[in-house]
């Protein structure tokens, strides 16, 4: 992913719905408008569970 993309864009690019995912960088929750930087490792967390 190119540096300077928003987290929302990263989630969408991965084929997911930003309403169904949260993003974490270095263990911290980041909002969807956060811009990514070179070397960032962003973990996407699915929020939907059920049963």
């Amino acid at each position, binding site marked *: 992913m190119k540096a300077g993309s928003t987290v929302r864009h990263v989630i969408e690019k991965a084929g997911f*719905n*930003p*309403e*169904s995912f*949260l993003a*974490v960088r270095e263990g*911290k*929750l*980041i*909002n*969807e*408008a*956060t811009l990514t930087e070179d070397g960032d490792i962003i973990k996407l*967390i*699915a*929020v*939907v*569970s*059920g*049963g």
Partner: protein
Amino acid sequence: VKCSKCGGTAVINMRQHRLRLCADHFVEWFVSMTQRTIEKYKMFAPADKVLVAVSGGKDSLALWDVLLKLGYQAEGVYIGLGIDEEIGYSDKSLEMCHNFVAQHHPSAVLHVVDVEAEYGQTITTLAHTKQRGRGRPCAVCGLVKRHIMNRVARDGGAMAIATGHNLDDEVAVLMQNTLHWQTGYLARQAPVLEEREGLARKVKPFVRIYEREAAAYALVCGIEYIYDECPFAKGSTINFYKELLNQLELKSPGAKQQFYLQFLQAREGGKVSFVEADRVELQPCVRCGQPTTAGNLCAFCRLWE
């Protein structure tokens, strides 16, 4: 993006509330929203003992955490279902509950009921061997959980059982009930199910909170929870509806909230009404004493015959 309250860095943007909050203000908002929901629907009072049904997942642990922070007498109940399915699902879930207590609320009371140890079979075995369970482990599981929760609530003198159902859970059920015009369910679906004839009162303090926010709260507060969902819930219809509703939410922020809360308002205001099927009288089961419509043995006791 800046926090709407303090100008710090926002960790979450809640478009349906037009609110962006930093970690501290999000936690404050989340706890206060839960408290306002408890008051709005008159769920319970500070002096009442509440039993929180915990599964090791984000919603129930977040709920227990919030209730304890608010000073409620909230005890946890964990039901060991014995679901392994090669991922050690139940073992991991229990570990999450124990870790939560140890790390966040060391003096909290957690009741653990292990289905196999108490009754001789796990949910997985029951689902394979019993007529009721054939291909429907969730039906057996629901029955077992309802029975045990009710028993623990009754034995422990709890005023209510609180579950972590969030707005996404409720709106998905509403969608399912609407698509099938299940008028009996539409008449009953509510944030509070009142106590009746031996059935404990049930409350859902997270009904105005999106699932995404419950997960965010757990992450921000460092609450470790089980990411895996129950192996039997994979591909469930409810999850399919949740995904559909999130697609709607993406295009139309607030759509989920509107659908659910306006349904409650319309019903309460008499703009829509659904006829509830005639209530069958409940009688105590001759073995366990819990209420049943069946007469003689309840469905739970018949499971072990």
